[in-house]
């Protein structure tokens, strides 16, 4: 690696590497540098804050009444207290790919089977506390446990009219 290339490139900050026509790339591109360390630390800190925030939120929510909310392509198809399922209930959702089977009982919810290629939603396992959720992207289904009072109680402004 000729060393003078590095100089020629650092002198012209605006130029992108490839513009040094006929010249070699500066060696700085190949060596682990201070900027990399900084970037990695920044990302770690960012993720750390997010994860801590989520854990704290989950902890505070876990004391509230759990509600099951199932969303298909953005529209809510189930919104019920988990305690309503004293008997184990099977909820089947027909989708473009086939069928998704959700099992509900009074203390947990899980996706038993799903006609989707990745099966990530099935592997997510059992959902027990508010904040838990399972997502099936190919079927656009989100199964969530939410804290009961999180978004109820404000009927005004939510709708334009009420049919009765």
């Amino acid at each position, binding site marked *: 690696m000729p060393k003078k290339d590095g100089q020629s490139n650092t002198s*012209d900050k*605006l*130029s*992108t590497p490839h*513009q040094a026509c006929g010249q070699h790339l500066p060696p700085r591109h190949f060596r682990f540098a201070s900027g990399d360390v900084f970037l990695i630390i920044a990302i770690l800190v960012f993720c750390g804050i997010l994860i801590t925030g989520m854990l704290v939120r989950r902890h505070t929510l876990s004391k509230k009444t759990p*509600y099951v909310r199932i969303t*298909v*392509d*953005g*529209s*809510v*198809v*189930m*919104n*019920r*207290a988990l305690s*309503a399922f004293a008997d184990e209930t099977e*909820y089947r959702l*027909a989708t473009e790919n086939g069928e998704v089977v959700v099992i509900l009982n009074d203390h947990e919810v899980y996706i038993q089977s799903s006609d989707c290629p990745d099966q990530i939603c099935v592997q997510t396992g059992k959902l027990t506390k508010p904040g838990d959720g399972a997502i099936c992207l190919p079927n656009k289904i989100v199964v969530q446990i939410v804290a*009961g009072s999180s978004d*109820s*109680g404000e*009927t005004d402004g*939510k*709708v*334009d*009219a*009420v*049919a*009765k």
Partner: protein
Amino acid sequence: MRSFRKSSECKTSKEKKNSARRGTWMPRMWSFFVVLSLLASLSACKKNTPHASVSLFALDTYVTISADGQEAEEAVQCASTTLHIYEEMFSRHHEGGEIALLNQATAEQPVTLSEETYQLLSLTCEYAVLTDGTFDPTVAPLMDLWGIGTENARVPGDDEISEALTRIDYHNIQLLPNDQAYVKDGTQVDLGGVAKGAIGDLLMAKMREFDVTKIILDLGGNICAWAKDDSLRVGVISPKKTDAQDPQSMCAIVTITDADLPMSVVTSGAYERFFEQDGIRYGHIMDTRTGAPVQTDLLSATIVGSDGTVCDILSTTLYAMGLERARDWAQEKHIDCILCAENGTLCVSTSLKGRVDAEEGWTIEYFG
């Protein structure tokens, strides 16, 4: 390709220009994104359009008419005046009203009806045939007998009921050409069951002639709504009256996006007008075969459609049919409906998929 460069040209100056241009390229791209996001947030802001609304008592209920747009005030004004005209036209209790006259008419002296009344009457008869009498516009004597929803509500005797049933038969309505009609054998026509839906449609058509962008008509819970380039959310009242603190609690929210046609959302159920005696709940919807309030396993039936009159008729019909029959029938006739079953399940037509959100305590099951 904006500039075509020949390699033989003076290289140094070109190179400088090029690098300078390249330097400005990235900021330009970023500013493009910034402008784009600004535009997006701007368009999210609602423009300040005039809004008008009026609430009044009519059709034995509470009516709210509201509109947005340049001529909102005029549209609402026009609608509230027209509302009373139609109300008198369709009421059988109004002396000299068309329906009152129709009930006195005979074969020798048929009454000439206005175009609106005649059309409504023929539509009503059509659906009476279609639903095989489950919906019947001549049910008035039974309603008067039971008096449900009034102070004189009672369980009548069998002989009274059979007497009233003899006066109920939608076949007795005779429609003649040239907007003429009469009724046979002392049968009484009562358009009370469809008046709200029909008036909603008529008012909507009137109001849309004005320069308005959004109209919401609430005729005692019959919703008829239209919004230009916007979506509206219409709640469906929860038929379970467990929560006394929140009388407005809903079981579902329907999103209306069809900008061309006004959409109606009409609910029928015995959760509001009923009376109880000896532990039995009697609703206000009558079964013309038994002469008693209908026995159904549905808590309520809600219809979503562009014709408010039809929605009004069908919601009563589907409610009276009960879950099994209503589901099959709605599927066969391609009716968009939400049927509330007792176990907290909402049976929703597949055609409404993605337009209905379940509220707390309810589960949607699609059918069809």
